[in-house]
């Protein structure tokens, strides 16, 4: 029970650090912008968000590591199984789209610009990455539920 409480506290602290880092980044960028520096249209904002995203991912990984070691072996097995089979199945579906997109004929397909009406390569790369992640996570969720339902 004490271990669980410690994990909750560490998780809250970890996400608190993420919030503080986001606030600090916003404050610095806002201060610079208010003082006449056009940071928002420079690469400085991009690097600042990159640094924030790195902190967010590192803390998320750390929280994930702590959480994974706190659950019992069957729960761990369910997640490992789900990540392999569900993630791989989602990736297989995404793989079809990747192969299709690599053909020159796919230039004829109009993909909606859902990233603030952006149609630049980086926005489409992000769209592809999000699509792949979404498919993998859907597969992961289905496989995880499948594992537990089969062991009820």
């Amino acid at each position, binding site marked *: 029970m004490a271990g669980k409480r410690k994990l909750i506290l560490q998780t809250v602290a970890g996400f608190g650090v993420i919030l503080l880092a986001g606030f600090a980044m916003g404050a610095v960028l806002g201060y610079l912008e208010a003082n006449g520096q056009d940071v928002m249209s420079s690469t400085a904002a991009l690097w600042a968000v990159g640094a924030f995203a790195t902190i967010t991912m590192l803390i998320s990984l750390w929280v994930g590591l702590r959480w994974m070691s706190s*659950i*019992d*072996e*069957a*729960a761990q*097995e369910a997640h490992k199984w789900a990540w392999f089979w569900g993630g791989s199945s989602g990736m297989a579906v995404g793989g079809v789209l990747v192969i299709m997109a690599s053909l020159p004929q796919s230039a004829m397909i109009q993909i909606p610009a859902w990233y603030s009406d952006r149609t630049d390569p980086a926005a489409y790369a992000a769209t592809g990455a999000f699509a792949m992640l979404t498919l993998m996570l859907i597969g992961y969720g289905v496989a995880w539920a499948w594992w*537990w339902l*089969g*062991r*009820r």
Partner: protein
Amino acid sequence: MNNRLKVLRAERDWSQAHLATELGVSRQTVNALETGRYDPSLPLAFKIARLFQLPIESIFSDEE
């Protein structure tokens, strides 16, 4: 793999939740073990054997 976990638990009049607490696992895991749909790791099998004060082979068997 078959096991006598459910019988041993019933003999002691323990609930699944109680056994789960004793083993440091979730109730769902105890249920998966009892139905034979999840085989425990060696450390967990030893823990179960110690809890019931029985040899592992008298709790788990690989016979169908």
